[in-house]
């Protein structure tokens, strides 16, 4: 009696493992075909990264909206994470209100284009009150004002083969030596074209403060702090999955 039960459960476990393994094989094939494989899919931890990204992309398909908050929820003291650059180039731009700053949009676009801050502010603006949570553990709520990234990408004319968008900040000499100096990031098209993804030039009703990324920063509703690149200088549309910041952390920030 006991032997039969043991064997039966052993067979059950074996069948479950076999089903799991073949299911995994099919899943990997389908995931790659439908763009569910993240850039950091390689290696042991890549397994977890891929499972997280793929399952979240399936669940959040159709532009699910991040939670929005009320004005009264806005944090009195938003956290500064790393001071603004102090090199001459940035300080000169900061001193004259970024009059000589331009954001260039290039790569896989029909019309490579660049914008001044004034030109960006002339585009349809919107505000979102969002939670900003750092992967370290702290969080604050703030209101962000800017233009949708989708609007800017539309003006440049994103080509159909576009898969990722690269966001490059000014090189920041203040950045801790233990981290990479320029915290550039890439996003997939689902997040780039998301209705809550802003190129923000305003924070809590005022011009974006220098320490929060002036003149322009990326602000997404569905991503953690590190994915919201500050001090933007260049946006590049690409189809290269292997072009991402390899800092040992997690690429997908919707976690």
């Amino acid at each position, binding site marked *: 009696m*006991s032997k039969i*039960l*043991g064997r*039966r*459960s*052993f067979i*059950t*476990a074996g069948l*479950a493992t076999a089903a*799991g393994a073949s299911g995994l094989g099919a899943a990997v094939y389908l995931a790659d075909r439908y763009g569910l494989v993240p850039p*950091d899919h390689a290696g*042991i*931890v890549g*397994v*977890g*990264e891929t*499972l*997280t990204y793929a399952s*979240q992309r399936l*669940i*959040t398909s159709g532009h*699910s*909206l*991040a*939670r929005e*908050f009320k004005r009264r*929820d806005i*944090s*009195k*003291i938003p*956290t500064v994470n790393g001071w603004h650059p102090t090199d001459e180039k940035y300080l000169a731009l900061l001193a004259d209100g970024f009059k000589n700053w331009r954001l260039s949009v290039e790569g896989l676009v029909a019309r490579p284009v660049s914008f001044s801050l004034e030109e960006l502010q002339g585009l349809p603006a919107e505000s979102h009150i969002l*939670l900003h*949570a*750092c*992967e*370290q*553990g*702290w*969080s*604050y*709520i703030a209101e962000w004002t800017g233009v949708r990234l989708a609007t800017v990408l539309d003006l440049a004319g994103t080509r159909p083969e576009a898969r990722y968008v690269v966001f490059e900040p000014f090189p920041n000499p203040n950045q*801790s030596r*233990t*981290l990479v100096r320029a915290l550039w990031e890439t996003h997939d098209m689902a997040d780039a074209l998301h209705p809550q993804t802003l190129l923000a030039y305003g924070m809590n009703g005022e011009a974006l403060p220098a320490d929060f990324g002036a003149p322009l920063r990326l602000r997404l*509703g*569905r*991503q*953690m702090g*590190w994915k919201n690149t500050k001090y933007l200088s260049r946006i590049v549309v690409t189809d290269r999955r292997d072009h991402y910041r390899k*800092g*040992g*952390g*997690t690429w997908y*920030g*919707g*976690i």
Partner: protein
Amino acid sequence: MISEARVEATIETIPVPRHIALVRVTHWIIVLSVVGLLVSGIGILVGHPRLYWGETGSLATASLIDLPIPLIIGPSVWYRPYHFFFAWILVLTGLTYMAGSFITHHFRKDLLPAKADLSWNRMLGVALDHLAWKRPDAREAQARQGAASTDAASTYNVVQRLTYLAVVFGLFPAFLWTGLGMSFGMTSVFPILATALGGHQSARTLHFVCVVLLLLFVMVHILMIYLAGFWRTVRAMITGYVPQGGRAR
């Protein structure tokens, strides 16, 4: 006519089946993933060892709990991918255990307490036995309560059953919920994951509370294993059988 002594001798030579393969395999995978999650979790926690209630919290706001560990910037970045790697192993193994347990009736046979055992007196009795450092020895228990009792060595007593059920159906799902409650992607589809807990920081704090509860469980669990005979119990969780006849330790 077989004498009672003969029966006893025969019983003693047959190893008693204890854990089915499903339970044994998933148990050890879960042990490994929990260790991985604990180590990587501490690596993430030192990035900001302060806990808050509500949606927001930072060095500029009052904390609920200030953990007496140093604040170290950096490890949280490197440990996060490992945390999710082990979390997926735990979730997939947990789901396999759940599905397999329903198929093999493991929950009904091994974990669901008998109705008669669900009295405060009974549970208090078991708890007092434990507190009195009475080793839950097979033959002792059988002699005291008869072979039909659920307190025999080949099954769990009522307190064990309720504890394991609480860990399987309460604690581990709570880990998952509080973890997903911090995920921006998940809360964009299911805001209730965060709002029902009181917010993003509340989810983080409750995730930590789950860790404390799990560590309490693990400490008691290991203490009980030691009291029941460490190698005998561990061997049963590896081979599936409790050695009988003679002292295993």
